[in-house]
């Protein structure tokens, strides 16, 4: 829960929000059994947006972004991703999943495959990319996250930060148009948090549409163009980062910020 200062200048030339809608969620509701976990969510994400979702534990942040690639099923309302509506149609779901990348708190790399095999698996089997081309792409993204020398190791031999960067590279190999992050740095030591955030910033600089659940408020301040605050399954407040942090409107937001920023 740090307010990590990012010691680099961010190149904002390609960080442009277009008018094109990437994700549209309307009146979405979800229950776990009888527990109403997401209540009446309305959210439109345009292409190129970098959204940070914050909120106390149990407020439904993970559930919300997991609904976007149908790791969780919503029961009411409508979610449209890249023009495709999420229904129980498996074809649509697989199509959306292959175009929306996701990074998890615990990386979820495949421990029985080498780093390179982790990266080429989905391109080869889902995209039907020829193996040689898939390996080239994988190496390109491994260079990008700065660990090409680990290609032939297994995930279990890498540090947490390296594993998370591999996980990001694995998603990128599918050439996604949207990236979802669910607390990508929460399981990492401070030293490693920075290397993962760096990778995420580079992604933002290239104009990727990103939804990040994170407690890294420094990242939110400098990279996000919108911060969403959730509590008890609802979107309580959203604003530009400057306004959100300096001038929160709702009491719950104020309370949350005072706790998380420690003043």
């Amino acid at each position, binding site marked *: 829960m740090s307010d990590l200062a990012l010691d680099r200048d961010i190149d904002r030339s390609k960080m442009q929000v277009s008018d094109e809608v990437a994700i549209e969620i309307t009146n979405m509701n979800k229950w776990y059994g009888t527990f109403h976990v997401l209540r009446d969510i309305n959210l439109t994400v345009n292409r190129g947006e970098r959204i940070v979702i914050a909120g106390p534990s149990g407020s439904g942040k993970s559930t919300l972004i997991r609904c976007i*690639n149908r790791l969780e099923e919503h029961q009411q309302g409508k979610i449209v991703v890249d023009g495709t509506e999420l229904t129980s149609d498996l074809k649509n779901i697989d199509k959306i999943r292959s175009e929306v*990348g996701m990074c998890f708190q*615990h990386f*979820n790399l*495949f421990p029985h495959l080498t780093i390179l095999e982790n990266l080429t*698996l989905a391109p080869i089997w889902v995209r039907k990319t020829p193996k040689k081309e898939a390996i080239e792409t994988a190496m390109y993204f491994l260079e990008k996250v700065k660990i090409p020398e680990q290609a032939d190791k*297994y995930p279990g031999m890498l540090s947490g930060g390296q594993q998370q960067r591999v996980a990001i590279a694995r*998603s990128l190999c599918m050439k996604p148009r949207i990236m979802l992050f669910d607390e990508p740095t929460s399981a990492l030591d401070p030293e490693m948090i920075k290397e993962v955030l760096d990778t995420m910033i580079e992604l933002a600089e290239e104009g990727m549409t990103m939804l990040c659940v994170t407690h890294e408020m420094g990242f939110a301040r400098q990279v996000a163009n919108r911060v969403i605050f959730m509590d008890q399954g609802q979107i309580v407040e959203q604003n530009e980062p400057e306004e959100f942090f300096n001038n929160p409107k709702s009491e719950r937001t104020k309370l949350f910020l005072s706790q998380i920023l420690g003043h």
Partner: protein
Amino acid sequence: MSDIAFVRTEILPQKAPPVAATGFIGWARENLFSGWFNSILTVLSLAVIFSVLSSILPWVFSPTWNGTSLANCREILTAAGSVGEHGTTGACWGVIRERWLQLMFGFYPSELYWRPILTFVMLFVALGPILFTDFVPSKLIWFSGLFPFIAAWLLWGGSIWNPLVALAGFAIGFGVFRYASTALGALAAIILAALVPILWWVFLAGPVASGLSSVIPLELETVQSRNFGGFMLSITIGVTAIICSLPLGIILALGRQSDLLIVKSLCVGFIEFIRGVPLITLLFVASTLLNIFMPPGTNFDIILRVLIMVTLFAAAYMAEVIRGGLAALPKGQYEGADSLGLDYWQAQRLVIMPQALKISIPGIVSTFIGVFKDTTLVSIIALLDPLGLSNAIRADANWNGIVWELYGFIALLFFVFCFSMSRYSMYLERKLTTDHH
């Protein structure tokens, strides 16, 4: 500057680890005599081992290889002076010399022994590309696929068209699947791919095979199932059940986790039923009851019936072992696969199963070993496996009263097989470790 302040100015170079005390004496001091308690235990154990061996070894190394009957063995032993307080002491190995071929092949015609031997050798060639993927060229996997058909033909003989026509059933199934999966979708394709070959085997395969063999007669002398016996029978049943139960177990385990209620209840029902019934009961069903349900005149081979029962039995246990492996996988692995857009079968095949099976290796191999040893139960339905034969041999007037030698020999052979499986599984587990090296 205070006393506790310290700054290292140079980094220590790496040193080689200390050399452990080497040689036998160093080893023994470290492992056997590291303290007075440990030393006493060592001495005691040595005494026990010595007393056991000193009574067993003279019995094992008895000069009775040429004995022709139990009485003859006793004479040889008396002449050699191996007489203890309860009569002669020493094994009577004559029985093994006289009957070992029978213990190996049962009543398989002796001029055709080359067929099971060749099959056995080919079994190892066929297992090579599956068991030792690192050393054996993977092209050989084709041979592994064809081996069951070659083996069946060599063992039972008959027209070569029978195995070929049976093989054609699989080819037909595959063709149907390829065609139907593009035309009708996955589920319909799977159902059709199962149904069409079954229809082929039941209705068309027989006439086609006999038609073909009347055109091109190419056949080996037929050997009836009731002539099968000995270790050949145990290995035939054991290996077939082991090889078939693994894929069947995987399917059952996946079915048990399925969201489709019918599939799930069928699998649960099957597994629980089979596990709740003793194997002997199933074997009795195979040997007697099944005939009642068959249309009169059908000849449903007894070994085939037993094979099916033992396979089903093993598959039910296998399914539960694999389910344990599936349950041990973190949910994140499913989510990782899903989030990349892998479909259900891809996720299972590429991500879930390789890991679940790896976790389950000890359980799977235990089940294999259990199945192999359970094949001795077929002696109860009058199939002449080594145990069944041993009863017949002991009923022979010459060998009446012989026990240890026969059972010891049989036990040794079973042990060799089961121990190899267990060793192989340890090798495999080591090979598949992907954590820190």
